[in-house]
């Protein structure tokens, strides 16, 4: 039997209006990688914030090494050897790596001045000890996200942490960076005798790295089991409370007219470099066209051009056979395009605004929501808001709730609800389920399929090949701003798509099957 | 957004300090309520060691000699307070001394509302209101002497002036000063800069430094508190300055060679006596020029190092005589 290191007993946490944790009992063993998994808003982060001293529990006790521990602030937690790496990094971008690592307990020179050279030395030694590749003198802002994360971990280790809590560490990482991170974690545990708690909602990662896994749902701990005994299906069931299978979606045969067509379009990115280099394709009513590609190959810009958010430098753009000359967001919306943007927080929503305000966008100048030209008809607006909240199962207290207080999945549902409610003939959807939990993903997929079956023309851009393969009728691959291939779904394998997405094979533009 | 808001708040803080003068204890309550109550309303703030402080000295002297009691109402150059402070002063006192050309409109309005109160108005001219006596100074005459003195002292043939604002009162100083200088030396160069502020020594210093760098070696400051910056610049550059309103030599006797004194306090004091003795001509303007000894030059006290030689003083007395006689006609900006 493994040695118990941390015991959380009967932890409950009450926030105004929400019981975030309810009687949670959790044991962490020494030297293990323990994954805590659950849907967005299940209470994982709250629980760990309690352990790290950011919140005080409403009730319950924490034992470390069998002794009762009072953790009232992160300082107490650090004293107990607990360190936490947050989902959003707490680094100062204009300072160097070394300065960030030692920040808070700097080596001092003459009592008052920070000893910069010593800080560099400390950081170098630390990095060597744990096998991290970082230059202590580099400024944080010049580093990639993956390296920044390593700096965060270094910072925690510098404070002498033996127990590391990582909150959604892979959310911002590329697959390669994720692999590297996992190697680092394994090394910390096996060579350095550390204990790691990792919060995530990605099943594959849990199975890949953890020794034991605890599942949380709606503030409660559902159970803890050794990872060997777990598989994706068991964990999913525990997380959502019902059996969710990524079963095939009902697909009606809808034949349609060609509603959107682009010929040889070109666009530049924000730095002025050409990122779309002559892209052509067409989209029919009642079909889902998936765009598969490794991120950064022009998909984002393609979506922006089609929705009028980015300048169309060259090429032709037709909707219902008519050439569009004035490509701007308002015009494209009037022509019947709805858009689910890839990043809901920067573009799809206003965090500070209420639910009803977020759901209104795009209709604020349209009857019956506005009368006498400018007067907002709150009655009609609220009616629609409440209907959408119900229809799309958005979990919110009321329509005045600020969107920033919703969980990621519910935020995405707000965007989907708004854009789908316009009944636009064309839907341009980017990364519809990024950072969204399993239950919400299933819901969103069903909604997309419903739209298709109702006859909408849908362009789907996603970094998740599984998603593209599940939903699309046709798939095009994009590589370095050009289309490299076009396939009927079910007639292509993941492996083949991968070759086209990485430019190793190229059909070029010869295969338009009109 | 947060960052911008923070910057804005700093600006608000800065802006609010602009309207903050320094303040001294102002109420001098006597024991008996039967004493004559005098109010002194000033457009700026006390502590300028110049115009307003001079007026304050006048009422203080009246308190010592005549046994009145008084209160000071400061407006700190806040146009929105002119009316309010004057109203409060009128409700308190039977004699209200109003100092600052800025009160031109409100003093006429308020004086009509309080017919039982006497108003002594300094720095502008209003006629025809029975309970309003205005005191007007011939700044141009005093400045003529200052100009003549500056012309006698300069070695670079260039003299300067820092004005508080480009407004009629200050221009009246300016024309007198230039005329006086030209009277001594036809080819003299006079450099004038307006600081656009009566309360900011930093601006005064900036202006003075600019003028010194153009070759001037003596500057006449007509800028209230702003003028203190002129003295500082003079000290740093080893140049000279002429003070204004009160005899300012005591501030720094090594650089301030003399002052053009506007005897504001004295004239207020005199007028209070006249009102008490019922000798006043109602609704009149009282002129204080060289003849009435309302303006003139101050050379400090004897223990200070004297830059102005006896010969110069004699010459200046001679000029003064000629102005009083009308042999020299001093131009005016009014």
């Amino acid at each position, binding site marked *: 039997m493994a040695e118990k290191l941390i015991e959380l007993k009967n932890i409950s946490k009450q926030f105004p209006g929400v019981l975030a944790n309810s009687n949670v009992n959790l044991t962490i063993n020494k030297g293990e990688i323990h994954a805590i998994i659950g849907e967005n808003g299940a209470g994982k982060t709250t629980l760990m914030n309690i352990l790290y001293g950011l919140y005080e529990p409403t009730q319950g006790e924490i034992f470390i090494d069998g002794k009762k521990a009072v953790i009232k602030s992160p300082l107490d937690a650090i004293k107990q050897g607990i360190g936490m790496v947050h989902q959003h990094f707490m680094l100062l971008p204009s300072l160097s790596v070394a300065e960030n690592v030692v920040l808070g307990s700097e080596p001092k020179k003459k009592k008052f001045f920070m000893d910069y050279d010593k800080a560099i030395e400390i950081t170098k030694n630390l990095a060597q000890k744990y096998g991290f590749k970082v230059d202590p003198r580099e400024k944080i802002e010049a580093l990639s996200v993956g390296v920044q994360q390593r700096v965060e971990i270094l910072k925690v280790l510098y404070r002498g942490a033996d127990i590391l809590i990582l909150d959604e560490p892979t959310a911002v990482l590329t697959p390669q960076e994720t692999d590297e991170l996992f190697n680092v974690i394994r090394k910390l545990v096996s060579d350095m005798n550390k204990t790691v708690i990792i919060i995530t909602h990605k099943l594959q990662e849990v199975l890949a790295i953890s020794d034991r896994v605890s599942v949380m749902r709606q503030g409660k701990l559902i159970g803890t089991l050794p990872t060997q005994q777990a598989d994706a299906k068991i964990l999913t069931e525990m997380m959502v409370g019902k059996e969710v299978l990524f079963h095939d979606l009902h697909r009606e045969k809808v034949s349609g007219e060609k509603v959107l067509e682009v010929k040889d379009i070109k666009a530049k990115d924000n730095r002025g470099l050409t990122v779309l280099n002559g892209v052509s394709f067409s989209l029919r009513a009642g079909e889902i066209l998936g765009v598969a590609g490794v991120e950064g190959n022009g998909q984002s810009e393609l979506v922006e051009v089609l929705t009028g958010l980015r300048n169309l430098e060259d090429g032709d753009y037709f909707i219902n056979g008519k050439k569009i000359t004035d490509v701007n*967001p308002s015009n494209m919306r009037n022509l019947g395009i709805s858009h689910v943007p890839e990043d809901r927080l*920067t573009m799809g929503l206003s965090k500070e605004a209420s639910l009803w305000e977020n759901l209104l*966008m795009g209709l604020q100048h349209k009857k019956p929501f506005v009368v006498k030209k400018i007067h907002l008809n709150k009655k009609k607006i609220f009616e629609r808001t409440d209907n959408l909240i119900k229809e799309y199962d958005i979990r919110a207290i009321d329509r005045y709730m600020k969107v920033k207080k919703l969980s990621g999945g519910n935020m995405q549902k707000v965007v989907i609800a708004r854009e789908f409610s316009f009944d636009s003939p064309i839907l341009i959807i980017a990364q519809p389920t990024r950072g969204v939990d399993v239950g919400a993903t299933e819901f969103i997929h069903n909604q997309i399929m419903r739209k298709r079956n109702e006859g909408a023309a849908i362009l789907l851009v996603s970094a998740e090949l599984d998603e593209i393969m599940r939903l699309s009728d046709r798939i095009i691959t994009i590589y370095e701003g050009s289309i490299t291939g076009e396939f009927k779904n079910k007639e292509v394998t993941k492996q083949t798509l991968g070759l086209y997405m990485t430019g190793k094979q190229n059909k070029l533009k010869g295969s338009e099957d009109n | 957004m947060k960052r*911008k808001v923070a910057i804005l708040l700093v600006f608000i803080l800065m802006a609010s300090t602009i309207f*903050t003068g320094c*303040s001294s204890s102002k109420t001098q309550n006597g024991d008996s309520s039967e004493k004559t109550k005098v109010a002194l309303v000033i457009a700026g703030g006390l502590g300028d060691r110049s115009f307003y402080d001079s007026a304050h000295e006048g009422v203080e002297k009246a308190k010592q000699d005549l046994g009145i009691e008084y209160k000071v109402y400061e407006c700190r150059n806040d146009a929105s307070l002119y009316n309010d402070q004057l109203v*409060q002063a009128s409700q308190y006192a039977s004699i209200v001394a109003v100092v600052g050309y800025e009160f031109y409109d409100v003093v006429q309005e308020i004086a009509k509302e309080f017919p039982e109160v006497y108003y002594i108005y300094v720095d502008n001219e209003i006629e025809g209101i029975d309970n309003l006596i205005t005191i007007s100074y011939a700044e141009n005459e005093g400045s003529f002497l200052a100009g003549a003195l500056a012309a006698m002292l300069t070695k670079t043939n260039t003299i300067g002036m820092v004005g508080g604002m480009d*407004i009629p009162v200050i221009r009246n100083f300016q024309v007198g000063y230039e005329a006086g200088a030209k009277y001594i030396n036809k080819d003299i160069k006079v450099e004038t800069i307006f600081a656009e502020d009566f309360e900011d020594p930093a601006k005064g210093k900036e202006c003075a430094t600019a003028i010194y760098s153009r070759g001037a070696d003596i500057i006449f400051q007509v800028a209230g508190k702003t003028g203190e910056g002129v003295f500082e610049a003079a000290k740093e550059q080893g140049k000279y300055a002429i003070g204004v309103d009160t005899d300012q030599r005591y501030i720094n006797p090594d650089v301030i060679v003399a002052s053009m004194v506007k005897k504001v306090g004295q004239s207020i004091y005199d007028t209070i006596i006249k009102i008490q003795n019922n000798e006043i001509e109602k609704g009149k303007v009282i002129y204080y020029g060289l003849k009435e000894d309302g303006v003139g030059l101050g050379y400090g006290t004897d223990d200070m190092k004297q830059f102005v030689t006896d010969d110069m003083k004699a010459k200046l007395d001679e000029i003064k005589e000629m102005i009083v006689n009308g042999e020299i006609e001093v131009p005016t900006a009014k």
Partner: protein
Amino acid sequence: MREAMKKINLSYIISLALSIFVALIIGALIMLINGKSPFIGYSALFSGAFGSKYNLATTFAKTVPLVLTGLGTAISFRSGIFNIGGEGQLYLGAFAAAYIGITFTSLPFFIGIPLAIIFGALVGGLYAFLPGILKVKYKIDEVITTIMLNTVAVLFTSFLVNYPFATTQGKMNGTEIIAQSYHLRRLVKLSTLNTSIFFMSFIAIVIYYLMEKTSIGYDFKMVGQNRMFARYGGINDKKQMLIAMVISGALCGMAGVFEVLGVHYRFLQSISPGYAWDGMLASLMAKNNPVGVVLMAIFLGALKTGSVSMENATSIPSELVMVIQAIIVLFIAGEAGFKDKFVLLNIKRKSKKAGETNA
């Protein structure tokens, strides 16, 4: 009513009230250190601001320009464009009104006054349009340009009133007095409170309606909160920012107009003691909420009026109020942190209570 309550940001109101309270306590301590009684000081301040009809009128007279500049600030800040040029727009608006008042002297009041108001608003709006267009067309930071244009406006009007438009009556750095028909009627004897307060109230209601109840206000808010989201939703963000800027400038211009038509009856070289800055403070205190702006403007107006009376009555210097205001400013700057502390405190207390009942 319950619907209305839900929209109110209660925790912010509490933290603001707490900030004000703490600032007043610090003010009281300063009085004590100087050997004055805070009780006498604050009661003099209060009665100076509200104690009589005259005092109340004076407080409201001070409120008029603060409400207008405050709303001007609020509408621009809410739209994500920062108009710090209120002072300059106020000066130009005031001069424009005075120009009408001394030029078209024979117009009857019902034409002249609206003309002066509209012209003043127009001039203020145009003066804000300049930095606005520089911002949306060339991405030149509007904070910098508007601040600099303040100085330009103050010095330019200073030139105008000392040379081409200088009065010939008495020594004043102002224009001639505007024609009698332009004078707004005074409402309370001795006080400068005048009918502009009715104009102001009307304008405030219009701005409230615009900001809270219309699609235009919705567009402003969305552009200010998330410009990308607004663009994505089909709002012409640049146009909205420009419109907000012009409205903001027009409101500040009108603040100047009413100082001329109602208070001074002429343009004065230093006509504003920093109204736009106090208005901005009102707006920041109210988080750009139009109703809050009006309340905060009254609060600041009362502080100002009361402080002068307090100084005259008790010889506690009115600068004390500056200190109090500065402390409030600091609290607002640290509002986020302060509020979180407050919430934390509350939770701690609650959890303690829960612990006691458990034990």
